[in-house]
């Protein structure tokens, strides 16, 4: 049994490495051009944001409408540092500093507001993100509404992949740990969880800190790939965008979030040629999906290889029956 787990673990790492090598090869061979790479970058950043928000909203059940605020902190911190000291090392330092600052803010905001429930928490986090945006709009160091022109690009496929895979692995492992189960129990019934001896505030704050940390990383990656950031990029609409990915994929499903990030990127690039009607179609899609499948694509299930296998065995059995 141990051996099997070992083999499975090795297989997983091998698959991760293989994905990286294949895409890197395609980039080197120029099969993936700049346009496709920009789409891939958007997808990766969205995966980080969605998976981390899924930890807060999907697994812990705390409704947050301020994820873009955490993202903007990472983006601005990293941008300011790499504009002063443009080097790959300072990119990594800026990225982690941004993520830590975002996590710190997650902690500061989390402690008092997490006493709130449901809609009130959503509104408080929304207010928090708006305040962050207004602060960035008024500071000198962030250049106000005009935004910052970063000018250097350090985000490449290596860093993108490392951090995306890192976030997914971190959050998957967290959710599957005893801490993760504590978070899920808070989502299911907060009072019952408390009665079982779970320190609900502690776990809510932990979820917020991890979520904010990852959002900070996503912001830093964004800032050093797309050259240019301004406060309006991280407004209410961005938070909604992230939430839509999470809900579309299914609250409490990490693979659902990843799937939805891909799906939305495909939809939005298909609609690229109709800029005027694009947001209208997007919003109608949103309404229709909510009306007909409110639990999202995956519900709270996970997509995995074993799921395919069991599907396959059902299929085989059916075939066998016919024979």
């Amino acid at each position, binding site marked *: 049994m141990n051996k099997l787990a070992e083999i499975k673990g090795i297989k997983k790492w091998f698959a991760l490495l293989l994905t990286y090598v294949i895409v890197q090869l395609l980039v080197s061979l120029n099969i993936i051009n700049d346009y496709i790479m920009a789409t891939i970058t958007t997808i990766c950043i969205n995966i980080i944001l969605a998976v981390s928000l899924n930890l807060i*909203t999907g697994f812990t059940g705390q*409704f947050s409408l301020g994820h873009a605020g955490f993202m903007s902190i990472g983006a601005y911190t990293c941008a300011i540092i790499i504009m002063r000291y443009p080097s790959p090392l300072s990119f990594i330092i800026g990225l982690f500093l941004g993520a830590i600052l975002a996590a710190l803010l997650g902690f500061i905001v989390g402690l*008092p*507001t997490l*006493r*709130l429930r*449901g*809609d*009130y928490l*959503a*509104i*408080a986090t*929304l*207010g*928090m993100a*708006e*305040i962050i945006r*207004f*602060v960035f*709009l*008024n500071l000198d160091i962030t250049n106000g509404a005009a935004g910052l022109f970063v000018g250097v690009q350090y985000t490449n496929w290596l860093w993108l992949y490392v951090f995306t895979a890192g976030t997914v692995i971190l959050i998957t492992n967290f959710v599957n740990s005893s801490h993760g189960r504590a978070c899920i129990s808070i989502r299911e019934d907060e*009072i019952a969880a408390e009665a079982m001896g779970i320190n609900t505030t502690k776990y809510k704050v932990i979820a917020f800190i991890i979520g904010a940390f990852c959002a900070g990383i996503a912001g830093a990656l964004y800032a050093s790939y797309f050259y240019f950031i301004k406060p309006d990029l991280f407004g*209410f609409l961005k938070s*909604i965008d992230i*939430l*839509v990915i999470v*809900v579309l994929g299914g*609250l409490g499903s990490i693979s659902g979030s990843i799937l939805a990030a891909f799906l939305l990127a495909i939809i939005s690039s298909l609609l690229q040629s109709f800029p*005027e*009607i694009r*947001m*209208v179609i*997007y*919003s*109608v899609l*949103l*309404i229709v999906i*909510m*009306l007909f499948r*409110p*639990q999202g694509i995956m519900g709270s299930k996970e997509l995995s290889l074993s799921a395919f296998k069991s599907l396959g065995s059902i299929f085989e059995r059916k075939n066998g029956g016919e024979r």
Partner: protein
Amino acid sequence: MEQFLQQIVNGVSLGSIYALIALGYTMVYGIIKLINFAHGDIYMLGAYIGYFCMTYFHLGVIPSLLIAMAICTLLGVIIERIAYKPLRNATRIAVLITAIGVSLFLEYGTMFFVKANVRSYPPLKGILTHSFKLGSIVVTAQQILIVCITIILMAFLQFIVKRTRIGKAMRAVSLDRDAAELMGINVDNTISFTFALGSALAGAAGILVGIYYNSINPLMGILPGLKAFVAAVFGGIGIIPGAMIGGYFIGTVEVMVAGYGNSMFKDAVVFAILILILIVKPSGLLGKETKEKV
């Protein structure tokens, strides 16, 4: 002192508009516990309908106001029937996402039809161009119009909610939906009626803001919508007098911050108030503490 009084006058005019929008939020939240994000966009549509009535049909302010209110009422009911009613028993988050979808649809749908550019209201005629001086305080006729219409509408709303059968049904449904249904109240119609009332008030606020600020655009509803929601939370969400008080308070604070401090920070202050009130007294100024039940 005079400057202070002048700011109060300006604050009350702006506060009236926030109060009108906040009433719709608070009623809808009170009855189905939904933050209706599309409410700010109904207000935007009200402004556009008023603009078209006044520019292309050369109607006066009051007829345009009534038309805008009527069309917004209809829209509110249609939105409720199509987008929210099928989700009556779904999770809260699903309904909220739908509300956001409706909001985006109204914003970008309007943008598609009328284009994104800012439009300005036609110049007002007659008595509405006057302004009155009380000492050194200037009160424009538009401000008087805004405050008067707001007070009339609020009185009318109070009458409906407190003195009519449908108002009684609204109060009953917001107290306990299942029990109200058992008493023979048609819950669906009552909810639709609530949306109708709220949308009519938002439509009125839209046209008043068009007259006051004289410029409208398809995304104008987002920020006032959020601020009106803050006003509703401040007064105690679900409580009608609370929304009025909250609206006037937020409007006055905003004008004061812009007048005495930095106008760039006026929006941040509103949200800081929100977080503060949520931490200190989440149920709002007039709200009652509710005990948690297992």
